[in-house]
């Protein structure tokens, strides 16, 4: 009798283990996005862009509330405000506010390899892409999930993506961004992970725009405060044009 129960128990464990330990592509994306989304943040960092003429460093400060509101300020006074539906850019020289649309979103942030669209986040992946788990891969000697993303509509910047998600901490360690015809547009890779307020987040990230010659950008996160109480008027026209 005991042998039967033991055998049945072992059988159950064996048949249920793939369901327990193998995550679907959707579950991996959900875990990765959940760990990236914080109620509110304040961060400071630097963008170092390098081209054939040399390197240029700009510092930035960023405030965010959920995934819908964000304000980004660069050391030269240029500011980007993201609201639920729009991205606004303020040019202090001309004192002009522009609502960014279409390919204008793909313009470079301060001449770096990063676009305004990249800087404002990659949005809700599962709403915008069909995802498929390709395989388990080693990336820099760490076990990772390799996933393929294909856009459901034309309303996304990158029709195809390959992403590597770390199996231990579910940080997206690498993205390769492609056109519909599989032309590689951009590579984004996390070079260093840091701990801020007991959360692991990318500390140094490399961005390479493959359409630019001899160009690369590194983003350094120097400070991150989580769950900060922001004044609701922070994400306003007054702050954008100040």
């Amino acid at each position: 009798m005991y042998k039967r129960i033991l055998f049945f128990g072992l059988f159950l464990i064996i048949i249920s283990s793939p369901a327990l330990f193998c995550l679907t592509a959707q579950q991996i994306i959900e875990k990765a996005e959940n760990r990236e989304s914080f109620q509110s943040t304040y961060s400071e960092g630097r963008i170092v862009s390098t081209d054939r003429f040399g390197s240029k460093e700009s510092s930035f400060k960023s405030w965010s509330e959920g995934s819908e509101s964000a304000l980004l300020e660069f050391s030269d006074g240029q500011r980007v405000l993201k609201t639920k539906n729009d991205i606004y850019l303020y040019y202090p020289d001309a004192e002009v506010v522009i609502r960014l649309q279409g390919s204008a979103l793909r313009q470079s942030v301060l001449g770096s390899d990063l676009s305004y669209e990249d800087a404002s986040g990659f949005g809700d992946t599962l709403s915008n892409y069909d995802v498929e788990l390709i395989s388990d891969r080693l990336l820099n000697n760490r076990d990772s999930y390799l996933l393929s993303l294909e856009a459901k509509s034309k309303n996304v910047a990158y029709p195809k993506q390959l992403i590597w998600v770390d199996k231990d901490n579910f940080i997206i360690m690498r993205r390769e961004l492609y056109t519909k015809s599989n032309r590689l547009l951009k590579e984004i890779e996390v070079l260093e992970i840091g701990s801020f307020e007991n959360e692991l987040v990318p500390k140094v990230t490399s961005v390479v725009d493959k359409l630019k010659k001899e160009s690369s950008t590194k983003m350094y996160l120097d400070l991150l405060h989580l769950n900060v109480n922001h004044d609701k008027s922070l994400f306003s026209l007054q702050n954008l044009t100040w």
Partner: protein
Amino acid sequence: MRRFLILVFVILTPFSAFALNTKMVLLNTLMPNETDSYTYFIDANINLSVGGLIQSNVKSELSVNYSSFKQKLSLDKAYIKARFGKSQITIGKTLLDYSPFFILDASKVLFNSEESLFLPLPNRWLTTYYLSLGNFSFLEATVASEISQNPTVATRYKTEIKSLSIESALAYRPIEDDKMSLASYVGVQGAMALNWAVATLINISPFDKNSLLISGAVFKPFSVAYSDTLTVKFESLLKPFNIKEFYLNCELSYSIGNLGTLSLIAQIEALKESRIITNGTFNIYQDFFIIGNVIIPLKEKFLPTVTVGFSYSF
């Protein structure tokens, strides 16, 4: 020169702990003169801006211009701005433009003569009080003066309703022969399929129906390849009670990734002088830009004005 240095010191001293941004522009121009030959001159501008970061509550900018054509050094901008919660005060010389993105918006006539609609509004000595009424709403009151004229007093209210940006203004300002007039302005901007703007202005005291102006603009950026953008912009301004007098501004701009932008612009002034303009801006080294433009007047002699120069920010 000594007075100028004192002014620089007074304006910049309160911000010495803040980051300083500098921009230099140097333009060389060949302009046809009355004898059908060309005059060469240089325009140089240096702009210093201090403070103005979100976490600071003071901001200042100082901009000085030298023109070898006028042979004089002039103060282009010099202002100080401070904010206290939702309130903001600006004192000094700066831009007073309710619609800086558009060339032919009816609001330009509030602060400029109709004789020079295509020229950018000149910076003016002013005092402005700004009160934020919400994330996308504000009320603003301005007193702006010119040495030779009575001051202009203007109030503006701006808000957003869904995706529409709506603003209205009242301005009591000098018109010809030193007379004063109270003008009313209403403008609406939206973005449905394409970006558009409509605005109207009329003198309400003394009432003059012939002063009614209506402006309209549409523009749309189109993606070309992956990173290029073709932008089409069309602006018009007309007087419904003097239909022969109208202004058109048609622009076609092509941005080549981050390398630069080429533009072809037609500026048409019925009853006056029209012109074709080609502009080019090229980012050849980080914040170093080469700038060039050619202005061809559409009159008897098509003698172009040619400008080449650079801008550098650091």
